[in-house]
């Protein structure tokens, strides 16, 4: 259940962060672009475990205590959001510049142009990449055990040390992840079909 709670919070927020970071890196001014780039390079470059340990133990050097659950949520949002932003950035770049010019020429502000013309297309184009990252996020959520979050893997590990039936316990856990991820894949493909706009090539498979 804790796994689901972590995912329920971090998945949607990481998507928002990914879109925000990706957009900021294309349209932001020097400062915003710089900050967004620094965030993306850092959290794409650090292994998830290092990020989690930095938030939980590292910040304790400064007297800041982040509870294990929130360490996991914040770590996963930063990490997954950074990865997702790369797909968003690539998708924005792939949209014909003529559309920007057309939007501006009919009197839209820059913000309107990005919100109503560019992003609706870019997010659809980046959809496959974003959902792939979310599926990785389900797998990486098992690493929250490292800061003591009682998610599925941590519970299974404890269970195994009580009964020592490693084959059965870890196979069961593997099957749970398999089912979870398969359901999610089907769900995402369904959304992808619903989001599709006839006549516009959105994802390249």
């Amino acid at each position, binding site marked *: 259940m804790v796994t689901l709670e972590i995912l329920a919070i971090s998945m949607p927020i990481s998507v928002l962060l990914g879109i925000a970071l990706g957009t900021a890196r294309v349209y932001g001014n020097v400062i915003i672009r710089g900050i967004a780039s620094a965030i993306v390079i850092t959290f794409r470059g650090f*292994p998830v*475990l*290092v990020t989690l340990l930095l938030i939980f133990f590292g910040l304790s050097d400064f007297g800041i205590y982040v509870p294990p659950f929130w360490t996991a949520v914040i770590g996963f949002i930063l990490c997954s959001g950074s990865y997702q932003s790369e797909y968003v950035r690539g998708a924005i770049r792939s949209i014909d510049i003529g559309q920007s010019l057309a939007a501006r020429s009919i009197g839209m502000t820059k913000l309107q142009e990005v919100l109503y013309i560019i992003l609706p297309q870019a997010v659809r184009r980046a959809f496959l990449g974003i959902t792939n990252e979310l599926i990785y996020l389900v*797998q990486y959520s098992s690493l929250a055990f490292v800061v003591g979050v009682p998610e599925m893997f941590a519970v299974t590990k404890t269970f195994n040390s009580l009964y020592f039936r490693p084959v059965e316990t870890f196979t069961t856990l593997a099957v749970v992840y398999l089912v979870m991820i398969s359901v999610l894949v089907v769900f995402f493909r369904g959304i992808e079909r619903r989001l599709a706009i006839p006549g516009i090539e959105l994802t390249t498979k």
Partner: protein
Amino acid sequence: MRCAEIFGLGLLGSYLPYMLEGAIWTFALVGGGLTLGFAMGVPFAILRVYGGKGAKAAIDAYVWVYRSIPLIVLLFLYYWGIFPVILGVKLSAMATSILALGTRDAAYETMIFRAALESIDPGQMLAARSLGMTRWQAVRTIVLPQALRIAIPGWTNQYAIMLKDSSICFALGVLEILTRTRYVTISIGSYFIPYLIAGILFIILTYGGTKVFNIVYEKVQIPGLVGGK
């Protein structure tokens, strides 16, 4: 200085070589994992593209399963379950880690190499066959040399992913970068700077390794072919 006290910087200096030595183990994990993934992924992809129905279904099942199980679960399943209990062999943490990284990577490499194989114009296969080559000859001498080159950027990506994933092997106590960093934090009693150094080390190794792959990619290019200039 109070600041130096907080971060235990004086002590950290003496532990730094110990942390950096972890890079050797990290590279051993990644090198072993990528090699195993390659050795499995390439034949899997060939079977997936050119094999019979049964082979295709089996490879699809393998890819589906191995792309869904988190690495940490695989590590524990191998280390405590499959090898000691079912197969009755005691493997070291290092060997188990390489097997887990490699068998998982094989699923991703199959996907990468399959895409590379399928990106090659089927007309080339027809041409090769019409010259009297057998199917296997055509695959080996016409399709593979091109596909292997096309797949290099995909493998570069896998390198970057596995480098970071290798830190998960700390859970079995493999003495790679993160495991050593944890020991250092415990012995000096401060955390932020050591973990930050570990993170930066991973970034440097990612960029450095990616550079090497890119150089190889440039070097093996054939002008005029897909991926060539």
